[in-house]
Every structure is written in C-alpha cells, then in structure tokens.
C-alpha cells in the first residue's frame, strides 16, 4: 500500500501533537485541582466507587448525587492506568489524545468537505491537504482553545468529540454506512459525560447545529437522500446506551419539588441564576474578540491584531468562492458567532435574553464559554474552506508564504501552551505555589487508614476552609487545592468547609469563635460526626495561603496551626492515629456521638429552627439519642409522636426589627428628566400622583414608591443646577403647611415649582405623608418599625445629598448657603421628630411564646451564658417567677408554670441594671496620646472639642474606647451634644482580632449639628467578627465655607452611654410524658452507601428510626413481605424482573456468611449495634426490594434539621417483634434498571459491529 506524502505529513503532525502534553508534567507530577477536581486521573477506581457508582454524595450530609455518566470513562481510565501505572502518563495520554484527535478530525472534516465540492470548483489535492492541515492546526493552536487547558474539566473531551463525531456523521450521511454510526455511538458511550446533564451546554450548542448542517449539506448540496430510518435506529440505540445516566437524571428532574426540576422550570433558575448572570456579563463580551478568535476577558496582547487574517480570509472566500458549501459554512459560522458574542445589536441581545425564559436555556448563562467549542469548530471549517478558495486564486509561491506564515503565527503565539508554561499555573491567591503536584506517598497511608475506619460516622476535616476544598502539600512543594480526597477517594462522608455545614454553619462559626466547646460538640453530635481529620502541616495553613481557601473560616476558627492544636484539645477527642507526625485522626467517644442509624430515646418538638440553633435543644439531654422536629405542621398533625416539647420564647423588642431586612433593595435612585422650570412639569407631578393612586393598600410596594418620588425631589435639587431661591422662608415646616400644590386648572402656575423652598416643602410633605401612612396602617408593629428604619436610612442619604448640592451649586453665595443649610437642618429635625423612632427600653425585654403552645406543665429556663451574670427577673403576666436550683450547666431555672388553653404567653425579662460599657473610660485626643503626653485622657463631662477652621490643622478629634465589644450584638449608643450650628461627625469604628479582619472599619457614621443641647440616640448591630470598638467625634465638611480661617469650631458632649441589648435564650420545656413504650434493639449494616439493613429485635410498640443522612423522599424503608407487594402493573413487572435477576444473581454469587455478622461498634449498652459496613455494588440481595411498597411512608419526615426519620408501628411489620428492615435510596434501584437497558443497547451495537466486520 502506497502512503502519500500528505498522509505521512498528517501522521507526523498528529503524533507530534499527541506528545505535546508529555512535556507539561515532570515525572510523578499531576494537575488535579480546581473547582472540578481531576482526582480521577490519580485513582480512577477509588473515584469511580466514591462518586459515580452510587446515587448519594459523600460530601457533608450525603445528599442525592447522580454522577453515573462518568462510569465508562473512569473504567477506561482505570484500564489505561492498570497498563501504564503512572497517573502522570495517564493525564498526558488523555490530553494528547484530545489534542491530536481534535487536529486529525478537523483535517478529515475539511478534506472530506473539499473533496465533495463540484468538480468545477474543487481545488487540487495539494490545496485540499494544505487547507485541511492548516484548519486542524488552527483548531488546536488558536488563542482561544489553548487557554482552557489550564483548567480542563471533565467535559473537556469535547475538544476531539465535536470534530470526530461530526466527521463520522458526515460520512454516515453521505454514504449511509452503518459502521460510521455504530462507531459514533460507541464513542458517545465511552464519553457519556459529554452527553449527560453536566455536558448538556456543550452538547446542545453543537449537535443540533451539526446535524442541521449535515442534513442541509446532504439534501441540498450533495443532492442525496438522508438515511432517516438508520438515523431513527441510531437515536434509539443512543437513548439505550445513555439510559444508565439519563433515566435517573430525567426522573430526578421531573420529580415534583426536586431541586433540579425547580431549577430548570422555575423562575429562580431561569431568571435569577440564568438571565441575571447573562445580563451582568454580556455587555463585557466583545464581538471583535470573537470575530478574531480571541479569548474574552483577557488583556489584549500586542500581536492579537494579526488574527484579523482569518476574518480576512473569510471575506475573500466570499468574494472568490460562490459554492453553496461555502455559503452554508458561513451561515453556520455567523449563527454561532451570534450565540458566542451575544452583542449583535440591541434587538439581538433582547432576543437572547428572551431565550432565557425557555426551560433549560439557563445552561447557557456563561454563553461565551459554552458556545465557544461549537463556534471554534465552524470557524475552523470556514478557515479550511476559505484557505482553499484563496489558495486557488494565488500563485504557488504565495501559497507557500501564506502557509508558512499561518504555521509560524499559530506555533509562535501558542508557544506558552506547547511548552507547558500555560498549564503550569500558580494556585490563585497563594504565595506562588505551583499546582502541578507530586503526591506525597505518605498520604496514601492516610487515605487507606480513613477507608478502614470501622464506624460509619462522618468526618470533620480541619483546618476548615470556606468552600469544600482540601489543601495538600506535595512532595515537590507544590500543592493541591480542590475537592477533598477524603470525600472523593476515600468515600467517607466529610465536612471540610463552612459551605458544607449548610444552615448549621453560622452556629458552628459562632461557637468556634467563642471557643464554646460544649455548644460546638452539641452541634457536631447532631451532624453525626465521629472522626476528626487534622492536617497539621504548617505549609497548608500559614503564609502560603493568606486568603483562599480560608478567607472566612480564619475569622472564626484558629488562624494558626498551634491554635488548632489547642482547639482540638478543647473538643476532648481521642487521637487514634498519627501519620508522619502531620496527619492526625481523632475520634469522639460514644457520649458525644449518635450512630448513623439510631432509635431515639426521646422524640422532641423544638419551637426553634434546629439547624440554626441546634445546641439549645441538645443541651437539655444527657443521652443525646433524641429526634428533634422543628416543623410546627408536623407537630400539630402528629402530636401523639412527641414526648417532649421545647418552646423558645421570641424576643419581641422592636429594637431587633431595626436590623431585619424585610425585603431586597427596592429601587435605583430616580432620574430627573424635566426641569423644575419646564411648563410641562405639572404633568410630571400629575403622573406621580396617578402612579401612587394605583396602589390600593399601604403596603411595602406603596411605601417604596412613595420614597422613590420623595427622593426624586432631592435629585432635582442635586442634579438641576441654578434652581432659584425665594429667600423669604423662615422654616420649611411652616412653609410646607401653607404651600398648596397648583391644581390641574392652574396649569399656568407651572413656574411655582421652580424654587429650592417649594421643592423642599414638597419633599417634607411627601415624607410626612409616608410617616402618617405608616403609623395609620394596620400592618404589624414589626412591619411598621422596619418601614420606619428603612425611611430613616434614606433620610440620612437625602440629607447628605442636599448638603452636597448646597456645596456644589456655584450659583449660591455664602448667605444663600447659610440660609439653605439652616432650612434643611430644621426640616430634618422636624421630620425626625415626626418619625419618632425611639429606642425601646433596654432594661425590660418583652418575650412571647406562641402557637403551638400545647397544654401542660413547663419548666422555664434562661441561658446563663447570654446574661453575663447580671441580676435578672423573669415574669409571666406580671407574676414574677422564682429562681430554682440549676439542673443543666448552661441554664438558669425558674419555677414551673402551667399552660392551659393559651394561644400565646407573654414574658418579660427585667435586667436590674444594664451596664454602661463606657462608664470607666474617658475621651482622649488621639494626637496628644501619640505624642506620649499624659493629658490625653479628658475626664470632664461635658467634654469640649474645639478645632481651628483652618483645613491644614487637621485633627482626629475625640476618641473613646468601648470595652467588652462583642460581634453580632446590638448596642444602644446615646449622648447629648451641642455643636453651635456647625457640622461634626460621629463615627463608630470596629475591628476584629484575626489576621483578615484586624483593620478598622467604620461601622456607623452620622453628621451631627445643633444650636442647642440635643440628644443623639442610635442602635447599631456589630459585625459578626468584631471584637473591639471605639467612638470618634471629629469635624465634618461644612455646608458653608467660612472666609475666616481662624474660626473655631466647637462641640460639647455629655452623658455618653453605650449599652448592650441583651437577648438571652428563654426556653420552656414540657415535663416529659413518654409515648414510646419500648425502644427495640437494632443492628444496622451498610450494604453500600445507598442501602442499609436494620435488624430489629424486641419491638413491642411504635418507635422511631433515624437515618443521619440528608433528607430525601427517595430514601425508602422496606419490609419485603407478601403484604407489602406492590399491587400496580409497574410493581408486578418490577417483582417479576427482580425475581428473575435475583435468581440469576444467586446462581452467580455464592452465599457467604464469613464476617457478615461482625459487629464493629455498640452503643447505649448494646441497644444499637453497628455491623461491619460493606460496599457491595451487586450482591445476592440487590433485587430483594423490587416490586415491594415501602412502609411508614406517611411518617417519613425530616428530623434534626437535615436527617430522615420514620415512625414504625407494629401494623407496618405485620405485628412482628423481630424482623429485618431495608433502607434504600430508590434512585439507585432506577439506576440498576437503566444500566440493564444500556447493557442491552451495548450488546446490540457490539453484535451489529461484529456482523459488519464478518460481512466485510
């Protein structure tokens, strides 16, 4: 067989490209990190078993995780790794295959298309080959695709899949040869990830267009019939092949209430996640970058303009090549250009935005990335076709020059990629730590030990980080930052970050910051944490990673490894293993751990959200085997289940409403379109009135709209310069009472609006109207307070804006400014008086206990730690409760109380004397202290601050430390002041005590000004991570600049108080009346992560069973017996199939009893035993539950803030006392069924392939 020189050249180039990635990694190195880990290259089998074989995640609480799609690919990786052994070589082989196959397939596509041109326009062989090779090189080395190799994700195989499948389908469409279709199908099976849910953006961006192109090309250009019947067969086979991951995924999406279903079909996913992101990013995307094939969001390089060459070729092609193929390719190029750039005219952008209303289109929110592969492919095809057109028009010598130029351009501009510099990235926000890691062999021992841990409890990994990462140091001083190896390779449920702690996170952070180990342990018990894995390596938690991934965690957890050691000691855990003196594994003893599956000793209703405040209810139990429900609907419907009720009293002091955000930000500041002097301004006024009249009720929307229009008055004064003054008004308040809006018939009085005073009067009228309406509405006190607080915030902004307007309006002279400043100040005093937003009494705090409030006797508790040992009194309905002897360490106990037929129960907590935090401190002047002078502290009251007007003699003013400042706490600050009508600024500074929040922040600031003594009062909420604070009084910008630089500004201050607003937990605990007659003994065993058996002994009555795994309706409890056989057709069919498969399985897998009864742990004096957990993907009992109805479905409820619970009654189990239950995740059963279909499809394809091969 003769091999042409072109074929040889293509072969050589393909081989060269294949070997490029072999130079990227040094022996032993791997690039595994990033958001989407590539740990599968490191240990494909472990990754497969942990992530893809079962439908539950090993991360955190263990929610549903459908990652079956990667099974064939991981098996292929495992197969290759078993041959080559080194993960470095596996990575290089796969990257090499991706690049070289991408090049080769593009070459074949272009060659095939050019060969198929009509004879009249068909270029010669040399041109076809050259164009094909150059197109392939463009596809591989152009600026856009090479950059993605720095962070390759699992669907990155799209690089070769798109052109390869296009070529195979092209051949299939043209020849009708089934072999092309069958090979395509096999390829899609092996790389199923690209045809799965996660691969849907790249799939839907390319294949519909590709098939359309092929259809048009075959039918209208090649004038051949489309093999419809074969395509239909291919589609059926495709669906069968992909069934193993598509069916569970589709069922999951279509399950009512599923997260994914809501996400795809609901407004949250379509608009919030999709459209909002698109709208935010689209304006930054450059059409020119796309047209030149450049990378978006990148600083332009000096040579980028050279890439204009390729669009130039396209246009020249259009001028010189009139073939239909060329026009068709250009049309598809333009279609993909539209999708990849989005910014083709406003109408185009609007249409794109409208597409986001289609279910599923939100997958294209990162459109420039998700369309880029389809765009690159059609761009490449056009490059090939355009080159052939140009080559036919130029001389041979020019052809060589152009070819050489393109090759040099592509190779030189991608040299960083070829040499590996582009992929050898530094870890983001690290101290230049390399990402190509050589794994420390010692860490393999760690993973092996973790895999062998006997108890099926969860693991807490420390140091904790922010977002589900793990940091590991490599042998070569590089590091891995990516998803945790414990979750992904050791297949153990693990919490490694704040994000994974979900709603429990905030309370854990608070407890960690306070170093409240009791509280922390109470929460960790609820989370089923048995082990702590601690990486003590200073390399991974120190200067090397000053920010990510520990940015937030550091503010709450210790910020040094030494601190962590102390912290772990405080938790009272026992060290069970140390490896290389770096990796430590600890375990909690049985008093601080409840097993993965347990029968609770008590079922309690807690009137507080468990996940937010888990420590409170747990602290009332010595034996932590309790099931806590916090859903009042469940409690009201099933009161008979509960033996204890814990009711948290709600603090009803309005001061807490000051800091609740009722709704999201309401509007952007209004724009001003008409001048006040305009003769059509009255129409603006009329339109505003009509707009407000549209609202029937005084609700949040109405108040927002009213504030919006009031703010418009401020903006008119701020934005419109040269607004005239009347200069004859003493007070805006008085003027506002007299001034009347011209009626519609007084249209000629349009100039009436054009003055500062009138606009201010209209503003005051509008604001006062809002205040009256807020007060008169029948909304709750909470709603009124939040509306007033919101209004107050805007008033502050408006005042600042008016002050700026006075300063900046050059048409005003000093007198005018002084006049306006006085008017504005008086107006705001009047408005604030009307607002009457006074701070409530900080010494008497009202509480309420509300429905559900079942009758019975209650113990009353106040949390001791929340009260700083202050003397307090507690009263109910005016009756003081007497203190009792403490029963629990953290709680003060008060006399019991009886509740009978009450809807609510008001309580009052009185603090006899609320301390003034600044009672022992004094004002200081910063500059004097810094000079070391003793007279820094000023002990007089009132204190006076006098500063020179001269701007150069600046001063920091008065400072006062506030001791004992705590994070996330409300404080009331008040003082009397007199500023002699000049502006001063009151600033509250806060800072934390950790590395990242050690800088001072302005927590609150307000300008103060008065002609007489006035009281300043404000409530502030300290930042979560604040640990100290100080007050500063300093001068502020003046509204009127004084001509006399010697003028003295003076402020006097007295009676400063800073008081903490106490908010202690008050809990009413019912006296237990047990309804659980007897708790049976159980032995539970994990068969695999989606299936457990529970052997129950001595069950005498109803009892509860808890599975400490993320709640999901698909967790079902089975008791396979004749009575529970499903009576539906689906059930009968499933039973028949399950019976056959079970029989087949039993004939294949021998029965074994060895080790099956081994008990690895025993709890509560043997009442709960844990069998040796197994990971059996397929065993003799796999199909035992097929065709059986689950039991106790109605009592399957969320418990402990995240877990699953069932209440099992004797009738559910045919009144037996000894039996075995099966807990199973049903999506795994669906997977088994779907896998059979895929297996069937694969067999058909292999059979057809064999048949074709034999026929040939």
């Amino acid at each position, binding site marked *: 067989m003769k091999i042409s020189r072109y074929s040889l050249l293509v072969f050589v180039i393909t081989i060269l490209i294949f070997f490029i990635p072999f130079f990227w990694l040094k022996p032993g190195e791997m690039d595994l990190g990033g958001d989407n880990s590539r740990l599968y290259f490191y240990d494909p089998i472990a990754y497969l078993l942990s992530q893809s074989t079962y439908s539950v995640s090993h991360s955190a609480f263990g929610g549903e995780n459908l990652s079956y799609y990667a099974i064939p690919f991981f098996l292929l990786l495992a197969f290759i790794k078993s041959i080559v052994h080194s993960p470095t070589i596996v990575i290089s082989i796969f990257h090499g295959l991706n690049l070289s196959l991408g090049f080769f397939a593009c070459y074949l596509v272009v060659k095939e298309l050019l060969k198929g041109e009509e004879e009249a326009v068909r270029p010669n062989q040399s041109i076809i080959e050259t164009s094909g090779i150059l197109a392939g090189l463009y596809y591989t080395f152009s600026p856009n695709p090479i950059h993605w190799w720095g962070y390759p994700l699992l669907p990155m195989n799209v690089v070769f899949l798109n052109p390869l499948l296009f070529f195979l389908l092209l051949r299939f469409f043209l020849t009708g040869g089934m072999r092309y279709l069958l090979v395509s199908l096999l390829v899609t099976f092996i790389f199923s990830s690209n045809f799965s849910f996660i691969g849907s953006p790249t799939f839907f961006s390319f294949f519909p267009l590709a098939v359309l192109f092929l259809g048009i090309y075959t039918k209208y250009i090649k004038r051949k019939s489309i093999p419809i019947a074969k395509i239909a067969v291919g589609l059926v086979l495709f669906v069968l092949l992909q069934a193993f991951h598509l069916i569970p995924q589709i069922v999951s999406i279509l399950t009512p209430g599923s997260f994914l279903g809501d996400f795809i079909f609901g407004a949250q996913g379509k608009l919030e996640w999709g459209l909002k992101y698109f709208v935010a990013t689209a304006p930054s995307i*450059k*059409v*020119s*970058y796309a*047209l*030149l094939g450049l990378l978006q969001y990148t600083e*332009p390089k000096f040579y*980028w*303009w050279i890439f*204009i060459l390729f*669009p*130039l070729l*396209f*246009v*020249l092609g*259009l*001028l010189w090549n*009139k073939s239909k193929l060329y*026009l068709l390719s*250009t*049309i598809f190029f*333009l279609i993909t*250009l*539209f999708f990849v750039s989005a*910014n*083709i*005219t*406003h*109408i185009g952008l609007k249409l794109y935005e409208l597409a986001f209303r289609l279910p599923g289109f939100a997958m294209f929110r990162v459109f420039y990335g998700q369309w880029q592969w389809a765009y690159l492919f059609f761009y490449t095809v056009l490059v090939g076709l355009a080159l052939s057109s140009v080559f036919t028009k130029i001389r041979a010598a020019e052809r060589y020059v152009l070819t050489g130029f393109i090759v040099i351009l592509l190779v030189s501009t991608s040299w960083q990629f070829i040499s590996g510099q582009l992929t050898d990235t530094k870890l983001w926000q690290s101290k230049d730590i390399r990402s190509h890691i050589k794994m420390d062999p010692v860490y393999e021992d760690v993973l092996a030990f973790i895999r062998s841990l006997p108890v099926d409890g969860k693991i807490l990994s420390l140091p904790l980080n922010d977002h589900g990462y793990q940091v590991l140091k490599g042998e070569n001083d590089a590091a891995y930052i990516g998803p945790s190896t414990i979750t992904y390779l050791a297949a153990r449920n693990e919490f490694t970050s704040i994000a994974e702690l979900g709603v429990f996170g905030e309370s854990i952070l608070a407890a960690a910051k306070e170093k409240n180990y009791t509280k922390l342990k109470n929460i960790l018990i609820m989370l089923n944490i048995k082990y702590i894995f601690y990486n003590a390596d200073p390399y991974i938690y120190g200067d090397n990673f000053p920010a990510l991934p520990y940015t937030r965690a550091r503010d709450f957890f210790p910020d040094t490894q030494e601190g962590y050691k102390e912290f772990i000691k405080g938790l009272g855990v026992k060290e069970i293993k140390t490896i290389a003196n770096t990796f430590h594994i600890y375990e909690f003893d049985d008093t601080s751990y409840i097993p993965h599956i347990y029968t609770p000793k008590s079922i309690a209703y807690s009137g507080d959200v468990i996940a937010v405040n888990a420590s409170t209810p747990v602290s009332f139990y010595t034996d932590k085997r309790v099931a806590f429900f916090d859903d009042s609907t469940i409690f009201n419907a099933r009161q008979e289940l509960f033996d204890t009720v814990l009711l948290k009293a709600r603090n009803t002091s309005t001061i807490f409403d000051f800091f609740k955000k009722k709704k999201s930000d309401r509007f952007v500041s209004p724009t001003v379109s008409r001048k006040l002097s305009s003769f059509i301004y009255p129409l603006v006024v009329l339109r505003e009135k009509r707009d407000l009249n549209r609202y029937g009720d005084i609700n949040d929307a109405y108040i927002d709209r009213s504030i919006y229009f009031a703010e418009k008055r401020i903006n008119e004064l701020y934005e419109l310069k040269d607004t005239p003054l009347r200069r004859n008004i003493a007070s805006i308040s008085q003027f506002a009472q007299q001034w009347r809006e011209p009626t519609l018939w007084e249209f000629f009085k349009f100039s009436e609006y054009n003055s500062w005073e009138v606009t201010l009067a209209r503003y005051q009228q509008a604001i006062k109207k809002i205040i009256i309406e807020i007060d008169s509405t029948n909304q709750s006190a909470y709603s009124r307070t939040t509306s007033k607080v919101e209004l107050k915030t805007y008033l502050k902004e408006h005042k600042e804006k008016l002050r700026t307007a006075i300063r900046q309006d050059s048409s005003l002279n000093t007198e005018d400014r002084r006049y306006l400043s006085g008017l504005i100040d008086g107006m705001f005093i009047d408005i604030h008086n009307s607002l009457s937003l006074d701070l409530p009494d900080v010494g008497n705090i009202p509480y309420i206990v509300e429905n559900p409030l079942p009758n019975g006797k209650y113990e009353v508790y106040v949390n001791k730690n929340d009260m700083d040992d202050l003397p307090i009194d507690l009263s109910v309905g005016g009756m003081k409760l007497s203190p009792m002897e403490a029963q629990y360490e953290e709680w003060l106990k008060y006399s019991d109380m009886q509740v009978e037929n009450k809807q609510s129960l008001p309580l009052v907590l009185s603090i006899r004397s609320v301390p003034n935090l600044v009672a022992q401190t004094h004002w200081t002047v910063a500059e004097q202290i810094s000079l070391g002078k003793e007279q820094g502290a000023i002990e007089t009251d009132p204190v006076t601050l006098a500063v020179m007007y001269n701007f150069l003699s600046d001063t920091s003013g008065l400072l006062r430390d506030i001791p004992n400042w705590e994070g996330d706490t409300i404080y009331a600050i008040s003082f009397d002041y007199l500023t002699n009508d000049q502006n001063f600024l009151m600033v509250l500074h806060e800072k934390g005590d950790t590395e990242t929040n050690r800088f001072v922040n302005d927590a609150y600031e307000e300008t103060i000004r008065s002609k007489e003594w006035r009281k300043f009062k404000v409530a502030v909420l300290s930042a979560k991570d604040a640990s100290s604070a100080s007050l500063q009084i300093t001068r502020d910008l003046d509204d009127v600049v004084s001509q006399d630089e010697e003028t003295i500004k003076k402020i006097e201050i007295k009676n400063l108080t800073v008081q903490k607003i106490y908010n202690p937990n008050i809990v009413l605990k019912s006296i237990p009346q047990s309804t659980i007659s007897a708790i049976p003994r159980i032995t539970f065993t994990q068969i695999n992560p989606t299936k457990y058996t529970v052997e129950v002994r001595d069950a005498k009555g109803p009892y509860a069973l808890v599975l400490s795994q993320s709640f999901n309706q698909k967790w079902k409890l089975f008791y396979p017996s004749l009575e529970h056989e499903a009576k539906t057709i689906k059930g009968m069919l499933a039973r028949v199939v399950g019976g056959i498969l079970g029989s087949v399985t039993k004939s294949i897998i021998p029965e074994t009893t060895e080790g099956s009864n081994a008990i690895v742990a025993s709890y509560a004096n043997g009442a709960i035993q844990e069998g040796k957990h197994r990971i059996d993907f397929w065993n003799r009992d796999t199909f035992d539950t097929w065709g059986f109805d689950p039991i106790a479905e109605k009592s399957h409820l969320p418990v402990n803030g995240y877990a699953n619970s069932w209440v099992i009654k004797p009738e559910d189990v045919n009144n037996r006392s000894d039996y075995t239950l099966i807990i199973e995740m049903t999506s795994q059963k669906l997977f088994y069924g779907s896998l059979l279909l895929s297996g069937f499809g694969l067999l058909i394809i292999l059979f057809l392939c064999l048949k074709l091969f034999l026929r040939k």
Partner: protein
Amino acid sequence: MNRIWSYVMNAIVYRSMYRGKIVTFLEQNKQVILVSLVGAIFIDSIFLKTSSDVITFGVLAAYGIYAKMTHITSKLTFLLCLLFLTALGISFFSSSASVTTEKFSVWLFLFMIVGIIQELRT
C-alpha cells in the same frame, strides 16, 4: 424568506405611486447614495459612542432597498465587508476592542448576512 423579502420590497417600492421616480432617482445618484450610506456607517462607528438599533437597522434597510432597486450584486456587499474589516483591523490595532472596533464588527456581521442573502437569491 424570499417571499417575505419580496413582500416587503413590493410594499415599499413597487406599490408606491412614486416608484418610477424613486428608481430613476436612485439609479441616477447610485454612487452618491452608496457613499452616503457607507459614510453614515463610518460616522456611526467612529463618532457615536452609543449604539442605536434605529440607526443600525435604518441604514441596513436603506442599503437593502438600494441594493434591491439598483440591482447591485453581492460582490459589492462583500467588498464593503472588506472595507469594514479593514477599518476594524485599523481600529483594533490602535485601540483594541473599543466602541469603534465593536461597531465595525457588528457592521461586518450584518453585511455578511446581507451579502449571503443576495448570493442565495441569485
């Protein structure tokens, strides 16, 4: 597509009572109009910092009518594409992805579509 195109053209041009006069006027001032349209595109791209669909589609529609009535071929449209591409290249070289560069990119895109439609119609 062809039918819609014909319908629009017929409605605008052939049904007009001034059809003959307009055609004559356009043919007599063919080059002036072309230069004006191209000039408008350059003014829009170089001097106007905001983009308006009214201008874009107005000019495009004017070019479409002009092309239809004066029977110019796709070659001229593709030559104009070449002109816009040259302007794009110069603009990209001098100011990277500036407003001007972006506008020329969009004009190039739109004129490529017009050219392809003309080519398909012939």
